[in-house]
């Protein structure tokens, strides 16, 4: 019976002029957003690969110089783009794509596309994720608001219920029919997207990320099921299709457009972060503590003289300048870890608020999961920052170790042999299971919405529906 109802819903919808116009619009926007995303991904990936190769080449071909000068010469680390960023660019445009790795400093990320945009530019962007999170729910609302309310107004609902049709079967059948119609609209985009990703990815199908892609599709399907169930539930209870439309448009507006901004403000209020100036000032104050450096250096001197059984620093078999530089790095690392750690932990707490707010607006839940699976959320940005900072510290240690190993009264110069000791920077993104762990609240919230909305939609309502 459910299959029969679903088929009839699909046929009716396909013959409905509203469906044809709306589906054409959704299809056009989703194809366009995918095409733009794919072009951006292809361009940026190519540029990143070229830039990463160039920075390595510059590092290896730098002239002979003191290793500490080389440490200041530095390298760039470019955050690799995930193929699924075609679908969801997440926070990437706001957090930057490259970081300059040099001595003494943990630099901030550079090259934020959002910085280069005009004031109205942000309104022109419509990523595939935004299409799926904002436009498709609107499409679902417009196609379902009259599913029950309209039938009640037309009188067909009485006819159906007089046949002995279970309201639950009717609701599930209608949901399946709407799902099939939605599938017809989104299938071309999905096929095109997978094809584009397959053709673009260097490492084969989705660059070895089919699990993430499959999960992304699955979670979006859950989100659409939630919106469909909520819409059908409202339509079954509203006194008129007009009232159903007003209620559902209000829900869509609050869920898709308002919740994100309000919750971001609430999260910032609950877990405030310092301004960039305050943050830098506090960190500089800790870094520039001469007495702390003197204490550390005195302790290190004593350790080394004891270790090598000498009376003066000049008598050490290692260059103390290298030791001193490394101590400076160690001190800086502790300060960076403490300050950035606190800042990022605050971001994490804000993120938890954001994820839990999905209980009120399911879009917040799917947004977190989508960014996570596309490798464009802040957690994965932090993962990359940690990896890049680790690489920076490796460079510093390699350079300082080399200085220590060359105690000389004349200027010491190193060459390509040392530069090659620093391995090329390679970043491995975390596994899908890591992402699922980070977005567990959002996933839980999505499933909770699905269960509650499905129950609400399918509750027998025979007398209330008439």
């Amino acid at each position, binding site marked *: 019976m459910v299959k029969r109802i679903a088929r009839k819903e699909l046929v009716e919808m396909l013959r409905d002029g509203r469906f044809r116009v709306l589906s054409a619009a959704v299809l056009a926007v989703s194809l366009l957003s995918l095409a733009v995303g794919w072009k951006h991904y292809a361009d940026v990936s190519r540029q990143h690969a070229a830039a990463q190769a160039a920075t390595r080449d510059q590092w290896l071909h730098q002239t002979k110089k003191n290793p500490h000068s080389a440490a200041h010469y530095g390298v760039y680390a470019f955050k690799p783009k995930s193929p699924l960023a075609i679908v969801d660019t997440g926070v990437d445009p706001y957090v930057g794509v490259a970081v300059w790795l040099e001595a003494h400093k943990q630099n901030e990320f550079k090259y934020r596309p959002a910085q280069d945009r005009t004031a109205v530019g942000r309104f022109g962007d419509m990523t595939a994720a935004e299409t799926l999170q904002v436009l498709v729910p609107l499409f679902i609302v417009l196609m379902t608001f009259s599913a029950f309310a309209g039938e009640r107004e037309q009188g067909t609902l009485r006819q159906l219920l007089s046949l002995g049709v*279970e309201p639950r079967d009717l609701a599930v059948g209608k949901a399946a029919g709407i799902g099939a119609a939605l599938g017809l609209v989104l299938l071309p985009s999905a096929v095109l997207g997978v094809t584009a990703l397959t053709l673009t990815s260097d490492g084969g199908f989705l660059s070895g990320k089919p699990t993430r892609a499959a999960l992304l599709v699955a979670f979006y399907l859950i989100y659409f099921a939630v919106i469909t169930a909520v819409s059908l539930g409202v339509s079954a209870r509203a006194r008129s299709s007009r009232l159903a439309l007003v209620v559902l448009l209000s829900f869509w507006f609050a869920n898709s457009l308002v919740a994100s901004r309000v919750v971001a403000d609430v999260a910032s209020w609950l877990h405030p972060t310092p301004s960039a100036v305050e943050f830098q000032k506090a960190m500089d104050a800790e870094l520039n503590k001469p007495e702390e450096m003197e204490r550390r250096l005195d302790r290190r001197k004593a350790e080394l003289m004891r270790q090598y059984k000498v009376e003066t620093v000049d008598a050490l078999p290692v260059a103390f300048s290298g030791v001193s530089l490394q101590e400076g790095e160690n001190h800086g690392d502790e300060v960076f870890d403490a300050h950035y750690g606190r800042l990022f932990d605050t971001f994490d707490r804000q993120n938890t608020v954001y994820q839990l707010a999905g209980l009120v607006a399911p879009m917040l839940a799917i947004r977190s999961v989508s960014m996570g699976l596309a490798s464009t959320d802040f957690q994965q940005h932090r993962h990359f920052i940690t990896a890049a900072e680790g690489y920076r510290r490796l460079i510093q240690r390699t350079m300082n170790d080399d200085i220590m190993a060359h105690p000389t009264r004349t200027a010491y110069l190193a060459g390509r042999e040392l530069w090659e000791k620093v391995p090329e920077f390679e970043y491995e993104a975390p596994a899908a299971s890591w992402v699922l762990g980070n977005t567990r609240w959002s996933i839980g919230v999505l499933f909770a919405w699905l269960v509650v909305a499905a129950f609400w939609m399918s509750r027998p309502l025979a007398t209330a529906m008439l």
Partner: protein
Amino acid sequence: MLEAIDLSKKYGSQIALERLNLTIAPGEVFCLLGANGAGKTTTINLFLNFIDPSGGTARINGLDVTKKPLETKRFVAYIPEQVMLYRNLTGLENLEYFTALAGHEYSRAAFIDLFRQVGLPEGAEDRRVSTYSKGMRQKVGIAIAIAKKAEALLLDEPTSGLDPKASNEFSALLKQMSDRGVAVLMATHDLFRAKESGSRVGIMQHGRLVATMSTADIGHADLERLYLEHMHD
């Protein structure tokens, strides 16, 4: 068979139906007459279990409609004042859909045969019902009842707004249904049609069945006089 045993419905202190006792045997056509608000549609809604009774029982083929809501609906077909169909589907698609949801499947040829049986013109089956007249839609309602093999028929002013020719055709179809042993309960304002089509007639007033009579025992004029007496009360 349709049975109402002390069937009552109240909305707060307002009585919509009071202790209705009625049995409609297979093949019998019982016409309920009465002014608007007399309780005719309430009776039909109670048999369809669209509303819960405040007291008493409505039974179809011996089953209580509140205890066996889905089973009892398998035996009954309902034709309202306006049979509402899906405008974007053809007549045949509508018939197929409603019949399938009632648990019956037929071939296309069998459905077309049903269309002819109820007097729908050739080609009507493949036209969208948005082009159908009210009379045609009522006939599709009868076709659904036949396809469903209904043993009882509940009609709520089915000929209201039909032209005389369409009304006559509809009455002929009703006669065919009763000849097949279908128990029919029809709420109507149409005294002439009630006298012509009904085996018995009941007059309702303020939720009570105040008079019942066999149509064979009463003439048109007497029925009209009796009806008006109760209308003016």
